[in-house]
């Protein structure tokens, strides 16, 4: 079977950051592979190692800068990657439908049996792409999966969905399917030196909308980011000042008043 993993390079804001227009200033952002997608990559690579998957392909929507991140997924064992970018995405706030226009076209050419992706992207936190994609391409789906066993012969994935409050739902999903992967599903590996070397020779195919048979009207977003601001602090905490010793002294006093450690 063939596994397609959707990955995203996400931006993380530094502790001290400033806002420039409707985004965080570029100099205060650091880029990395989305944490949730790292678990999806690991799950896909494990399926390949168990000889359940014959090929693992990663797909991303991202500018050239994202190749470094995608290369890390290749170094962890993904066979090859497709990177889609177009000027139309530059500075835009794409809605879910525009993203799945792209993924739908990639699915049409790759014909995977299983699509894995993170539950959400750490920066935008939408948590919707995987399930919307499943609907578009006619796959079954399960969101927030934290345990996965694929029975290729039976055409099934047996998953746990992590519900709120320490409860897991045990669910049987018919393949082909899209599963969105929760952190904690597995232990994502670090890329080995050998893996990093091999990744240099693996293909990252660049594609634009034209290559996918799409045009800019397909990815026009229904959403516009109109403002970004730091939320007003609702804190009424007593901030304990001083060096570590002084602060600990005052905190110890507070804790003793509450009957702790006495």
């Amino acid at each position, binding site marked *: 079977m063939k596994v397609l993993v959707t990955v995203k390079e996400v931006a993380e804001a530094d502790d001290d950051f400033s*806002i420039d227009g409707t985004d965080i200033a570029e100099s205060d952002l650091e880029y990395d592979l989305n944490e949730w997608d790292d678990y999806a990559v690991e799950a896909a690579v494990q399926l390949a190692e168990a000889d359940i998957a014959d090929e693992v392909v990663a797909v991303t929507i991202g500018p050239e800068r994202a190749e470094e991140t995608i290369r890390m997924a290749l170094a962890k064992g993904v066979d090859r990657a497709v990177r889609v970018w177009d000027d139309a995405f530059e500075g835009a706030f794409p809605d879910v439908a525009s993203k799945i226009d792209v993924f739908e076209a990639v699915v049409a050419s790759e014909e995977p049996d299983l699509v894995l992706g993170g539950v959400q992207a750490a920066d935008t936190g939408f948590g919707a792409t995987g399930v919307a994609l499943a609907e578009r391409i006619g796959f079954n789906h399960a969101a927030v999966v934290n345990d996965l066993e694929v029975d290729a012969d039976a055409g099934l994935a047996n998953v746990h969905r992590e519900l709120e*409050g320490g409860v897991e739902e045990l669910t049987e999903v018919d393949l082909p399917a899209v599963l969105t992967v929760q952190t904690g599903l597995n232990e994502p590996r670090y890329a080995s030196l050998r893996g990093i070397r091999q990744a240099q020779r693996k293909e990252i195919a660049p594609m634009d909308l034209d290559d996918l048979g799409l045009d800019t009207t397909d990815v026009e977003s229904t959403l516009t980011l109109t403002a970004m601001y730091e939320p007003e602090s609702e804190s009424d905490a007593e901030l*304990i000042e001083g060096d570590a010793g002084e602060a600990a002294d005052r905190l110890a006093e507070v804790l003793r008043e509450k009957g702790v450690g006495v």
Partner: protein
Amino acid sequence: MSVLVVADHRRGELRDVSYELVTAGRELADALDGELAVAVIAGDTDRFAESLNRPGVDRIYTVENGEEFDNTVYTAAVTELVGRSGATAVLAPNSVNGLDYAPAVAERLDIPLVTDAIDFAVDDGLTVTREMYGSKVETTVAVDGDQFCLTLRGGEFAPAEGVGEAEVESVTVDHPDSGARVKGFEEVGGGDVDIADADVLVSVGRGIEEEENLEVVEELAETLGATLSASRPIVDSGWLPKNRQVGQSGKVVTPDVYIAVGISGAVQHVAGMKGSDTIVAINTDPNAPIFDVADYGIVGDLFDVVPELVAQFE
């Protein structure tokens, strides 16, 4: 211009967000000058409909279909009820189950979707308030479309109370065979310790950096006679077992004193500990959202502060 909200329930109980959705749905319906309908799909529909019959609800649709959640059924039922009610706004919970059908509904209806909304306003069109970058910023997002779907974060709106006069209508929905079938449930986090029973919790987060550093907080817990708990990344890394996890997907705790060490305070974590009597936070980042719920805060390096605190009690 009417609003359809979708109730959230699980294993025989309506979840709190259902009542919050009624409040938010009524606000949205008022802004759109329309009616509010509530969808109750599967489970004990009659009992749920009665509970959700709160003031401001005009109509409740019940769809009988087994006991539990099924994304095939939910997607078909919500889509059908949008057509039937003429709803221009669909309001679903931003829960694990909500996110298992709302994106599919929006896609099937070809309408814009905004998830994890914490507020909204209707002016020239819909504007949604939501967070980005792990709660570090809030944003407003303008939605272009006469019809849309929102998922609403729990705990942001007051639950609707009282008894209303809604009409209840039972609806049968055709749907294809389910592609994802629920086989059962499993409670996680049994084991030796129930952190929900502890009077004092020392809770550790990502700020601890390495597994071997855990002894710093273990020593604090031991010195204070407290129980050790953790935020999600510590459990995901396998450094502490799942039964120690505080938060939306772990345990909800309400100890007398909760000491958050190196925890930034993501919304999923705060949902599990904000009911503690006294909250103490130690974190290097003065902007960390944990300070918003803390009663006492130290902006500082846990590796400096915690050993000093241990020394105070020795």
